[in-house]
């Protein structure tokens, strides 16, 4: 039933598309503590999927498993047509050219300048001429709204918002088909956070990549999400558009979306008189 709701969005429109990410029967356990059990998730091309869940529900762990940084105890993860556990090191490397990740704290290489950070993925290909590298990097910096003055700066000289922008430019360096964002607006003030959301939205429109994002921030979620996957009870309880998720009856959804903060952020989307009818 869960699968049916996940696929409905696309099958109703009569479009059959190959999913970008397919997670089936995933299980994660730290010692006796089971975080995910029999978790399924499907991500379709071009959408922005937001993962939400209470703290300790393993959102970031799930993201790390999709990108292959952690290995699940059981289950399969298929990304861009490749099953992660069956990849040879060479295939693994080629796959890594096709995705980008924005880490929560940026994870910029502090020994390299902003320019070299963004250039690193291109230079690691070893075959791209340096003048093209320069043009691509300057284009990426322009995309995230940084000027050539910032190119020589060190990551330690940047503000929090700038670090996120540079990290985004680096994640976009190879023009990935798939972009992972881990708490992209955490630690930014509301203004910077809104700017960042606008940036991701406009880049998504221009470049058409698929985004999988973890966030706690309702404003970010509402501004960007095509679909929302809610993690609770060790699995994805619902993965659908915001109005459909609001109709779903679950304590976490009540507290997260329909609490005071949630209702304020939802605005017109909030269900009339707090009933879970059609918004």
């Amino acid at each position: 039933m869960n699968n049916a709701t996940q696929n409905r969005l696309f099958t109703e429109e009569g479009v059959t598309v190959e999913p970008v990410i397919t997670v089936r029967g995933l299980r994660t356990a730290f010692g006796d503590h089971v975080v995910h059990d029999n978790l399924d998730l499907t991500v379709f091309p071009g959408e922005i999927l937001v993962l939400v869940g209470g703290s300790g529900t393993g959102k970031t762990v799930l993201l790390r498993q999709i990108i292959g940084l952690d290995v699940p105890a059981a289950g399969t993860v298929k990304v861009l047509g490749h099953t992660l556990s069956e990849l040879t090191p060479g295939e693994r490397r080629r796959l890594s050219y096709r995705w980008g990740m924005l880490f929560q704290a940026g994870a910029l290489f502090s020994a390299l300048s902003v320019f070299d950070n963004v250039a690193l993925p291109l230079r690691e290909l070893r075959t791209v001429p340096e003048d093209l590298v320069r043009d691509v990097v300057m284009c990426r910096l322009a995309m995230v709204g940084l000027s050539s003055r910032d190119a020589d700066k060190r990551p330690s000289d940047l503000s929090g918002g700038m670090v996120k922008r540079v990290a985004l430019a680096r994640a976009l360096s190879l023009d990935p088909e798939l972009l992972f964002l881990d708490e992209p607006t955490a630690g930014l003030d509301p203004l910077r956070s809104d700017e960042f959301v606008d940036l991701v939205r406009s880049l998504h429109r221009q470049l058409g990549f698929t985004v999988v994002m973890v966030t706690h921030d309702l404003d970010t979620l509402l501004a960007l999400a095509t679909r929302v996957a809610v993690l609770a009870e060790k699995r994805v309880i619902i993965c659908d558009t915001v109005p459909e998720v609001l109709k779903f009856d679950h304590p976490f959804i009540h507290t997260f979306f329909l609490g005071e903060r949630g209702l304020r952020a939802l605005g017109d989307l909030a269900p009339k008189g707090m009933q879970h009818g059609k918004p």
Partner: protein
Amino acid sequence: MPHSALLATAAAPFRHEGGVCHVGGDWSVLALAEPGEVDRRRAALARAAQAGARWDMHGIDRLDTIGALIIWQAWGEKLPERVRWGAGQQDVFNALAMNKGEALTAAPRPESWAWVRAMGGGILRAAENGKALLIMLGQLVLDVGAMLRRPRLGPWREISAQVYRTGAQALGITALVGFLIGVVLSYLSAQQLQMFGADRFIVRLLGVSIVRELGPVLAAILVAGRSGSAITAQIGVMRVTQELDAMLVMGISHGQRLILPRVVALAVTMPLLVLWTSAMALLGGMLAAQAQLGVSAQWFLQSLPDAITLTNYWIGMLKGVTFGILIALIACHFGLRIQPNTESLGRGTTTSVVTSITGVILLDAVYAVIFSTVGI
């Protein structure tokens, strides 16, 4: 057809027909990452652009902004007059046109006299480090005074933890190195002494050189590499994670909680480690002398107290205490100077170890001069 020619024979993403350049194939970064591919395509595009061709982009299956950038540059960074698009391709070029990267500002030319500046900077930095070390030593004396006045408030738990970490855990490595150096020294000396028939002097030779010089220096070098680097890295990481700032905010002074326990701990453990290393070196020397010269262990041990005078023993202990304080001070100093980035952490740790080993050997030379002038 006059213009019918295959422009690029190998990859063949181009077909030039009747004044129309058909661009096709894979223009994603993965295809372009093949060796030489970028240059080949650029050359072919340049030829087509020079011929003033019309463009047909329908054949492209995959296009990303990096591939598009190559085509865009061949077009002279503007859209050509006549071009036919596939679905969605214009968006990629629009994205490029919207985000035209600025030219990179040229790096400033290096000055021709930069080495003078670098040398002067080095000297000034060394002087600055020396001054900071002196201030730290002064602060340490004040902190020790404060601790002695109110011993109940002293950081005893931290001191005990550091004693265990820098002392007890270093026993294994100092024993091994000391023992092996003793064996080596004994073998080398035995060869020379045998030539003169002065076998019996092996005890004096080993006793004085190990207890007075080798034991303290050997232990100090091992401790500087082992505990000194650990102290620097630990304090450095505390800077990176803002723990140092958090301590200041709570009103906990770095001197009392970080520097004092480490200095006191090393001042306690270093003489003990010196004693231990010297004993192990003498044990190694004794066994080697027995094997090489036939000097019995019993006789070796009996004549040892006469060979090592009490003065030499106390000189070894004094060296241990001062080397320990020096290593801890230098390690803390460079730890506190680390900037919150990975490069600085690595450089700081290296500098700390190199400086403390150099400092130990320098101090040892100073002791040698002082003791020889007073005649002990």
